[in-house]
């Protein structure tokens, strides 16, 4: 992955700062609780939800198992339909390809549909360096871009902003980029949406190049699918003369029919709707409708590394619905920025360290950014066992070593010896019980002391359980 978030502190530090921000906590709590209840209701409408979930999981697993075959098939079908396919091993290569394609058109600005893949590779920054202005057109992305901010949620990147903050950003910044916000803009969501409509309309109408991602690519037909709400996606996919779609290699489904599953599970999981307002499907180019040139840039950027890990590869099933973020107690309190990646929340905690490796402090800390409560797994529409992958990645990080992990390994080793020596264990337990009046409520020392600043130590029983059992039950 690119260096978009270079220099991020490890999760615990970033999260510590975030939980101290009461506005952020309130914004996140409000938003995640609202969507949580709605999602549960939308899912409950389908009494075959569990079967749809299982089928989605199996189709994604099957696709990943034969990814080479389906990639080649997709290349054939897209090409046959008039598109051009490009392959990029990493972020730099993808950025070079896209920059070159835009330059070939002679244009110096592009309109963009919200896309995780282009954020992941830092495309906007690369285009800016090449003198090309990239305008984000999704409302939340616009809020983030105008606010010189970073995204904090997969679906709603500006979830950390409330309506008052959004009003202030629009009023202050829109004029710098184009049409200013209307006079006397209030913070009602309808007025804010109207301001975005007016601001972006001129950009859509003059746009010659559009850049998108895709939710699905159908290998059998060469069809790309973009699922959205606002119509900004349709604008970018339809009005420009050139369309460039940057998509991760794992976004394939084998057949047209497979969409019948994901078009039921994705909208209900992400925005809690029976169906999102707009879904666009296109296959290559069409003579009389839409862009005359279509380029598909397939990116690896760490995905084949992830695919090689037999436990971790299930993360590639992700359809980016963000349901796991909305139910996560850690995300709700820490917010998306603490994860130091464009992929925050539980899915980010397993995806980022796999795509980027665990050498940086932030990536090594991400597998620990969870209480392993399992709510994420419950709601995942493709049944990614996020806790399983988290534990697996913790093992990997622990194997790398580091001060904390050396201490932990020493402690586990000592515990192992004691549990293997019942006599020593019994003696220790009895000593602990007899001296229990002398035990402090807090642990001494810097590390342990901090742990008990907000917790009490458990009370020691009057006698060890095994002694009590012997006396009373045998």
């Amino acid at each position, binding site marked *: 992955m690119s260096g978009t978030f270079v220099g991020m502190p490890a999760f615990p530090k970033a999260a510590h700062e975030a939980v101290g921000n009461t506005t952020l906590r309130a914004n996140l709590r*409000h938003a995640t609780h609202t969507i949580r209840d709605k999602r549960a209701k939308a899912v409950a409408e389908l009494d075959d939800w569990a*079967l749809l979930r299982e089928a989605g999981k199996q189709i994604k697993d099957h696709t990943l198992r034969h990814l080479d075959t389906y990639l080649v098939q997709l290349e054939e079908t897209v090409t046959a339909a008039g598109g051009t396919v490009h*392959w990029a*091993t990493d972020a730099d290569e993808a950025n070079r390809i896209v920059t070159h394609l835009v330059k070939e058109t002679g244009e110096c600005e592009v309109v963009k549909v919200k896309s995780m893949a282009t954020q992941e590779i830092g495309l906007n920054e690369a285009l800016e360096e090449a003198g090309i202005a990239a305008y984000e057109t999704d409302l939340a992305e616009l809020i983030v871009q105008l606010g010189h901010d970073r995204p904090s949620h997969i679906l709603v990147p500006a979830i950390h902003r409330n309506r008052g903050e959004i009003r202030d950003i629009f009023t202050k910044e829109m004029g710098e980029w184009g049409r200013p916000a209307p006079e006397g803009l209030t913070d009602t969501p309808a007025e804010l949406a109207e301001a975005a409509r007016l601001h972006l309309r001129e950009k*859509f109408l003059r746009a010659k190049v559009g850049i998108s991602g895709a939710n699905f690519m159908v290998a059998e037909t060469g*069809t790309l699918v973009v699922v959205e*709400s606002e*119509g900004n996606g349709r604008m970018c996919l*339809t009005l420009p003369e050139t369309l460039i779609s940057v998509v991760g290699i794992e976004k394939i489904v084998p057949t047209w029919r497979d969409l019948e599953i994901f078009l039921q599970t994705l909208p209900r999981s992400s925005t809690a709707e029976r169906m999102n307002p707009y879904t666009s499907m296109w296959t290559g180019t069409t003579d009389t409708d839409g862009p005359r040139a279509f380029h598909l840039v397939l990116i*690896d950027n760490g995905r084949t590394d992830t695919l090689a890990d037999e436990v971790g590869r299930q993360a590639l099933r992700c359809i980016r619905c963000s349901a796991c973020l909305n139910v996560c107690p850690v995300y709700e309190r820490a917010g998306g920025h603490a994860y130091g990646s464009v992929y925050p929340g539980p899915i980010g905690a397993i995806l980022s360290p796999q795509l980027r490796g665990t050498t940086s402090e932030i990536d090594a800390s991400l597998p620990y950014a969870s209480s392993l409560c399992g709510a994420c797994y419950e709601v995942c529409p493709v049944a990614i066992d996020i806790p399983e992958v988290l534990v697996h990645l913790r093992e990997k990080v622990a194997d790398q070593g580091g001060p904390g992990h050396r201490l932990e390994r020493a402690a586990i080793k000592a515990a192992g010896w004691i549990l293997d020596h019942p006599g020593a264990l019994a003696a220790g337990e009895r000593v602990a019980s007899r001296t229990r009046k002398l035990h402090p409520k807090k642990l001494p020392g810097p590390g342990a002391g901090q742990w008990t600043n907000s917790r009490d130590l458990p009370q020691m029983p009057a006698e060890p359980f095994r002694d009590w059992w012997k006396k009373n039950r045998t």
Partner: protein
Amino acid sequence: MSSPTPPSSRERILARVREALTDAPETPEPTRDYLPTHTIDDAATVLDLLHENLADYRAFVHRVADDELPSFIGTLLAENGVRTVAVPPGLSARWLAASEVEQLLDEGAPGGAVLTPYDLDAIDAVVTSCALAIAETGTIVLDGGPGQGRRALTLVPDLHICVVRTRDQVVASVPQSLPRLDPGRPLTWISGPSATSDIELDRVEGVHGPRTLHVVLLCP
């Protein structure tokens, strides 16, 4: 002596995929035990459900008899203060026969009339047919067929009137819809007017696409 050409990125990615999967177990054929529909197979029930779900996402839904369609559209356009309407190729002339509006034809094809994005932006409304409608999700699907036009036509004007032939264009579910659609055509699935959940995850109607969507259920 020429040096061997380094492998292309395509070859490198495909090789890495194959290497990653060396020991991966074979996956079974996906099971499709889920339901083909969640609705009983009864035309009136399916139509009621479509009506209800379209309205739930803030589309205005009308049931109109075929012989009343021209006057109904005329009244609807007048009530909304519409002066100009974009007309896709193949739209039945009868549908707009009772409308007192300026009609701007977009043939889309080279040599024919093509409305620019700026033209479309200045047009008040668009009237179209559709390819099909899905009851369970409250969705209409356009495929650019007769009476539907290019995708831009139903995107830029702020008001969209879409006529659904209930006799043969309504299906109950998403699984029933896909076999009837041609992936080779550009498809637009529309479920209510443009909306966003981007402000505090609360749904607000009306951003970039048409802010008003009227769906006319044409009853025989």
